[in-house]
């Protein structure tokens, strides 16, 4: 018995205890936005689509400055030789029924579509998030806001667009107004639901016990959790707004004759579809590429902003 004890003593020694080592976190420092970009750029496909999107958006913004295209001026209107030319090295996308370069027309139209898509989405998002966040938090506001939602969400969009465009006159301002006047409530409703899901989590209770105001809680406890779902919403909203602009302009409710538009381009060129299909397919292809690339980049960004994908 004694011998064993002696042996044990020889075999074992006290290990030293390092307080710093026991608390130190060896993993590299985590930064939310750095991880977002790392995840986003990891996929080659995403980077490719991202470049396509940048080229399309960049072209739409820069090219019209150099071309100086104006829908009211058709310099070659009296020159029949310049009409309906097929795409070639001289005329990249060919020419249309009044002798304008389709290349100029399509980028000028895309520029207006993009402006409307982005501006309307930003306005909707700002109003929607601000209203939705408070709506989700306040039970008192919820009672009457839900009634407001029921009323506004049941207004037929097309009817509203028609009435407003006749009353206010067609134009970019009117179109953006039409896109925002009711759409924000859908964003607000979506945000309200998301806020309600995480409103009663324990860390919000803890913040309340520390005396944090509702506004600070929305800013620091709620919205950071919603970055990913907001990005998903944005990535759907920009392409859908662009499509809506095209649709309304096609019906003649969108932009005025003074402004270039992909929608009206399609509607003007449709009669020549049989003889000169490129007049129809070029604006449609540009629209499709623009919508799809914006959507994919948005979706990938939404995925990357979800911290569960960071590990």
């Amino acid at each position, binding site marked *: 018995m004694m011998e064993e004890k002696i042996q044990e003593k020889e075999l074992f020694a006290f290990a030293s205890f390092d307080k710093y080592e026991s608390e130190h*976190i060896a993993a590299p420092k985590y930064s939310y936005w750095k991880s977002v970009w790392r995840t986003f750029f990891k996929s080659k496909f995403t980077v490719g689509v991202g470049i396509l999107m940048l080229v399309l958006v960049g072209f739409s913004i820069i090219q019209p400055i150099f071309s100086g295209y104006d829908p009211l001026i058709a310099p070659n209107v009296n020159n029949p030789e310049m009409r309906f030319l097929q795409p070639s090295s001289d005329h990249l996308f060919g020419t249309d029924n009044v002798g304008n370069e389709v290349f100029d027309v399509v980028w000028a139209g895309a520029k207006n579509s993009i402006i409307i898509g982005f501006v309307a989405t930003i306005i909707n998002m700002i109003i929607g998030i601000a209203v939705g966040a408070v709506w989700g938090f306040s039970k008192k506001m919820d009672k009457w806001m839900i009634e407001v939602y029921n009323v506004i969400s049941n207004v037929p969009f097309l009817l509203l667009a028609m009435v407003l465009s006749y009353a206010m006159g067609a134009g970019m301002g009117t179109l953006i107004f039409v896109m925002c006047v009711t759409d924000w409530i859908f964003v607000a409703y979506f945000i309200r639901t998301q806020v309600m899901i995480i409103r009663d989590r324990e*860390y919000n*209770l*803890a913040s309340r016990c520390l*005396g944090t105001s509702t506004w600070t809680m929305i800013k620091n*406890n709620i919205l950071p*959790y919603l970055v990913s779902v907001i990005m998903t919403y944005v990535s759907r909203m920009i392409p859908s707004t662009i499509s809506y602009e095209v649709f309304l302009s096609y019906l003649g409710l969108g932009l005025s004759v003074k402004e270039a538009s992909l929608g009206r381009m399609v509607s003007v060129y449709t009669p020549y579809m049989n003889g000169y299909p490129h007049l129809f397919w070029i604006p449609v292809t540009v629209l499709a590429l623009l919508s799809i690339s914006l959507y994919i980049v948005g979706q990938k960004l939404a995925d990357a902003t979800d911290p569960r994908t960071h590990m």
Partner: protein
Amino acid sequence: MSNKGREVILSIKHVDVTFEQGHKKKLVAVKDANFDIYKGETFALVGESGSGKTTLGRAIMRINPCSAGEILFEGKRISGKIPKSEDRDVIRNIQMIFQDPAASLNERATIDYCVSEGLYNFHLYENEEDRTAKVDKALNDVGLLPEHKSRYPHEFSGGQRQRVGIARAMIMNPKFIVADEPISALDVSIRAQVLNLMNKLKAERNLTYLFIAHDLSVVRFIADRIAVIHHGEIVEIAESETLFEYPVHPYTISLLSAVPMPDPVVEKSRKHIVYDPSKLDQSGEERVMRELRPGHFIHCTNKEFEEYQEKIAQMEKERGL
């Protein structure tokens, strides 16, 4: 030990907490809770799941409103509607440690923000340097390192997270802390670490704890006085040693019989006593808190009171008192 002459910090007077369940249906979570907590002590509230112990803790934090009765802190009413300036004082003086350290920290905020949230809300710092110094000190007090400030909660272990939760409460310099099962979500190996930390901070800062728990063995280690709560009603209040030595109420006895002992011989012969409320006095007489011995209260009818008195006298005799 007499409690007379000791300063009462928190006093709960006939508090009811009820929850509405739809139309005309009510759930009474806490019934007629009535006790005082003295300055500098650790008062434990023990009961099974759903007994209303957390609800009572949250009523003190004013998360759940009281439907009857009132709560006094240092003699001032804090339940119901109170002026904004008093409200801010109460927030600073009463802080809470939460049960689940993973759920009670904001995952998208750095530890720096989590700990200084209270400082920001009350602007308890002179300048940025002062704030940093305070946060560093708070982290140091709970055994964390200043380098942790730029980290996010998910990078920490459970025990570390709970210590962040403690630092966040302590930085406000509160007088009273509601600890809602602070160790039940933790690994057994780090429970003692957190309990020792809480005891150390209590001694250093002259704090008072309301310690909510379901684990009696833990409560014995940390509490000065214990209240046993069952189905929203407090059935027995006594000093911890008295409660463990002379448990009188059948529910307390049943709870104590369920405490596991780290001794196989004792464990083998352990008999679990099931609490059966139907064996209590069924005369329909209203039960009230009665003082059995100084500082030892029991929730009973008159008839039961006599029985309990006999029981405790017999127990005292057995133990040669």
